[in-house]
């Protein structure tokens, strides 16, 4: 069986039980009851369907009715394979599809698509919103989707007007017949058009990029008004009839279990309390109001039990300290596995006249997205389950819920509302999300339950950005140029942390940013000492690059200093055979008014300096210059200039906004932010002890986009990694102090 949808067959199958508006019905067929798309009603999990999925030959992104509904008022509803969490993917998809459909992106209503094979549109065969992949991995497929829909509208127009399709053209939102001067709005044609067979994907012609109206233009975001007026709905805002609210108190350390509740009866008698529940590693209160649930659950006195040997989660030991862990990493002597090894590093280091050694480390970080996690679960009378939850991977979450509940995936409807920030927070992290608890509570009370984690519970269970300690060794030649570099990182990457063990191959998310550098240094070795720690780790915006580019690009400046080279000139020298990066480095230099290292005295009398750094994250190239001064012993960042080459882009305004946002997060981890753990517990449970960058510490940001025409790269994450080293290099020039750990609030500067 082929999983490609035959629209005619699908329509006739549905006519049996859904005698309503056809285009609407067809739309739903491909979406809300997504399992039908796969199996035509066959229960998933049967060998037949699995075989069909395995043998699927349907081309990605060709099931037009699953994605698009054009309403009688000409508004285009697009079900987007990617989640909107601020990065602008809903707008980008409206531009890309609208360009080929010939419909103004401003007429689009965009929502997140449900789980389902139909929405796997990325060239890597995945469906996640992460890795800065959405646009770059689906761009041609989503263009073709728009073109296929346009072809169907043209066909419908030809039938309705009784003319050959070759005589028709389109203008935004309508089919035109120039000969007779007649036209039909898409909204008039859509119902019929969506019942036509989807044309052969190879038969549609894509628009010549020179004719683009919306791709490449600063099109306004589709969500700007709703987000400026409180109308945008996030998971935390949702409600359904008869819903109860829930709050939890987690065990102080992951892996501990619930023992005796000393005051259960008193808590049950508290105002508004519906019931008290024991959950794995947590207690919960269900109440008529969330405030009542929160107050009651925080009042419960629990005798927490130490983790047992068969704990299903990574147990947090009572003596874990993040500072001690970082020291242990720095002292870790191996064994190390090589990721890159070129030339003869050992021999060059052994015989070098000029050697530079240094040890760097970074800090744990929380995601700190402003929307606390929540989940709403409802069991319907027929036993099916609906869940509303923030997520970056709907199919993975649905599969997980199926596993946890024993329900067939076809009985689970998963809704993916807007994300109130994510930065990597909403991947599948066992024990770090409220939905398993919400489902269990809803089942227990027989009513829909919305569970919100308080900010304090979020800080307790959020997964952490990984830490590493890197021991560098390098050698210079007689002219002061780098001859060899070795970086041995003691670390655990997020992917291997989630797997619970190191894989056959090295975890690329552990070393990216140390590996993959383009500098022409003839002898180099990049290696990892796998150091499995007690903390639960996750992905954080720009992942491995968020730490590794800080290490490498700072150490590179140490080599420049030792060899008597200017750091900008050193990079140009090491990139002399790389035209793309040479162009980029010159671009950021020009943007900043010409490379000027300093120290110098600014117009306001302050002493300042500039630093430079580069990074190559997620298929994109970046170069950053930072200007700093010292105020009251702390670093003040005045300006960040960033040149970014993602190959080509879809929306320059959103790119600029993403650079600003990534710079803010980059400055936050550079200047103020760290998750400190003492005695197995996080020191901070809220923003009072976990500072994130406040407005007063934001820098001015200047952006230059360089479109080299190379393969399209990512946008959301790439502008972050070069920020920290550019700042650190500027600080070293200004103060003579080399910062080898973050955040800078741990250091004092003079």
């Amino acid at each position, binding site marked *: 069986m082929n999983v490609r949808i035959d629209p005619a067959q699908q329509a006739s199958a549905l006519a049996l039980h859904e005698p309503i508006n056809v285009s609407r019905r067809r739309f739903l067929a491909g979406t809300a009851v997504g399992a039908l798309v796969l199996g035509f009603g066959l229960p998933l999990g049967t060998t037949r369907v699995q075989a069909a999925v395995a043998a699927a030959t349907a081309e990605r992104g060709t099931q037009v009715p699953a994605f698009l509904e054009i309403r009688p008022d000409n508004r285009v509803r697009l079900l987007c394979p990617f989640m909107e969490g601020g990065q602008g993917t809903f707008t980008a998809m409206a531009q890309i599809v609208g360009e080929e459909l010939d419909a103004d992106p401003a007429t689009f209503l965009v929502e997140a698509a449900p789980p389902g094979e139909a929405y796997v549109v990325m060239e890597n065969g995945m469906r996640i919103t992460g890795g800065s992949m959405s646009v770059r991995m689906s761009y041609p497929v989503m263009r073709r989707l728009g073109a296929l829909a346009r072809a169907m509208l043209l066909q419908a127009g030809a039938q309705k007007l009784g003319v050959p399709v070759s005589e028709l053209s389109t203008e935004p939102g309508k089919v035109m017949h120039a000969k007779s001067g007649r036209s039909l709005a898409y909204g008039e044609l859509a119902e019929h058009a969506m019942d036509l067979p989807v044309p052969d994907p190879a038969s549609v012609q894509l628009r010549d990029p020179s004719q683009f109206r919306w791709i490449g233009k600063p099109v306004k975001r589709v969500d700007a008004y709703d987000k400026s007026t409180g109308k945008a709905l996030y998971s935390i805002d949702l409600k359904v009839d008869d819903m109860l609210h829930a709050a939890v108190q987690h065990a102080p350390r992951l892996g501990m279990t619930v023992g005796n509740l000393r005051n259960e009866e008193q808590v049950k008698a508290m105002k508004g309390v519906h019931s008290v529940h024991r959950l794995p590693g947590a207690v919960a209160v269900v109440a008529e109001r969330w405030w009542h649930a929160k107050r009651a659950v925080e009042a419960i006195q629990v005798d927490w039990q130490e983790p047992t040997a068969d704990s299903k989660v990574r147990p947090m030991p009572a003596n874990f300290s993040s500072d001690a862990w970082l020291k242990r990493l720095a002292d870790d002597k191996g064994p190390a596995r090589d990721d890159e090894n070129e030339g003869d590093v050992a021999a060059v280091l052994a015989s070098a006249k000029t050697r530079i050694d240094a040890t760097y480390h970074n800090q744990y970080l929380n995601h700190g997205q402003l929307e606390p996690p929540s989940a709403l679960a409802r069991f319907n009378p027929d036993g099916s389950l609906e869940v509303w939850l923030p997520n970056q991977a709907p199919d993975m979450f649905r599969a997980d819920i199926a596993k946890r509940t024993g329900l067939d995936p076809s009985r689970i409807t998963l809704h993916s509302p807007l*994300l109130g*920030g994510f930065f990597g927070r909403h991947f599948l992290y066992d024990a770090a999300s409220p939905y398993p608890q919400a489902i269990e509570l809803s089942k227990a009370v027989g009513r829909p339950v919305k569970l919100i984690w308080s900010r304090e519970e979020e800080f307790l269970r959020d997964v952490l950005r990984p830490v590493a300690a890197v021991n560098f060794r390098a050698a210079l030649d007689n002219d002061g140029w780098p001859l060899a570099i070795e970086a041995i990182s003691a670390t655990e990457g997020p992917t291997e942390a989630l797997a619970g063990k190191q894989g056959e191959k090295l975890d690329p998310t552990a070393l990216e940013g140390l590996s993959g550098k383009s500098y022409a240094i003839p002898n180099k070795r990049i290696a990892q000492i796998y150091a499995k720690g007690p903390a639960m780790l996750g992905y954080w915006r720009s992942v491995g690059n968020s730490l590794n580019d800080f290490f490498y690009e700072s150490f590179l400046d140490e080599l420049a200093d030792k060899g008597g080279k200017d750091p900008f000139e050193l990079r140009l020298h090491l990139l002399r055979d790389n035209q793309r990066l040479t162009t980029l480095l010159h671009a950021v230099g020009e943007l900043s008014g010409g490379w000027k290292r300093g120290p110098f005295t600014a117009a306001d009398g302050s002493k300042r300096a500039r630093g430079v750094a580069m990074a190559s994250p997620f298929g994109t190239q970046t170069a950053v210059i930072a200007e700093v001064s010292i105020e009251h012993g702390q670093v003040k960042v005045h300006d960040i200039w960033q040149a970014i080459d993602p190959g080509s882009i879809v929306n320059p305004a959103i790119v600029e906004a993403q650079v*600003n946002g990534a710079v803010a997060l980059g400055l936050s981890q550079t200047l103020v932010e760290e998750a400190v753990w003492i005695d197995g517990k996080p020191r901070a449970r809220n923003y009072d002890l976990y500072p994130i960058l406040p407005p007063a510490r934001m820098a001015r940001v200047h952006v230059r986009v360089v479109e080299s025409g190379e393969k399209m790269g990512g946008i959301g994450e790439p502008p972050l990694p070069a920020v920290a080293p550019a700042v650190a290099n500027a600080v070293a020039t200004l103060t003579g102090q080399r910062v080898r750990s973050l955040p800078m609030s741990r250091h004092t500067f003079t």
Partner: protein
Amino acid sequence: MELRINQKTYQVDADADTPLLWVIRDDLGMTGTKYGCGLAQCGACSVLVDGNVVRSCVTPVAGVVGREVTTIEAIEADDVGKRVVSTWVDLQVAQCGYCQSGQVMAATALLKQNPKPSDAQIEAAMVNLCRCGTYNAIHAAVHELAGKGDA
């Protein structure tokens, strides 16, 4: 108790110390005002009480009896609020949007009290956190509203 919110009168059955935020969100079903921290750290819950911006997550509901509360739901009913929203959209301030209700409320309160704030007054008033890092866009929007053009 009786509350005045967005020019309407509501009867609410809540304990005196219940934070205004949760009365607005759960009792009255207006979800534009956001819960971020519950500790007056982030400002996502900002509302106006008699024209002053307050953090509703730490404001006991009893404290606003007899006062006029304005939430983001009524922001466009106010001339200044309408201009703020319009500028927020023009300058494409929002990213994830979660903090922006509070940011719009803070900007509206500032500009209603002082249509031409100085840079220092803007910096003192616009202190809500934004994890997406829209600070420069917020800064540009408030400067434009204050008649300073691009800043």
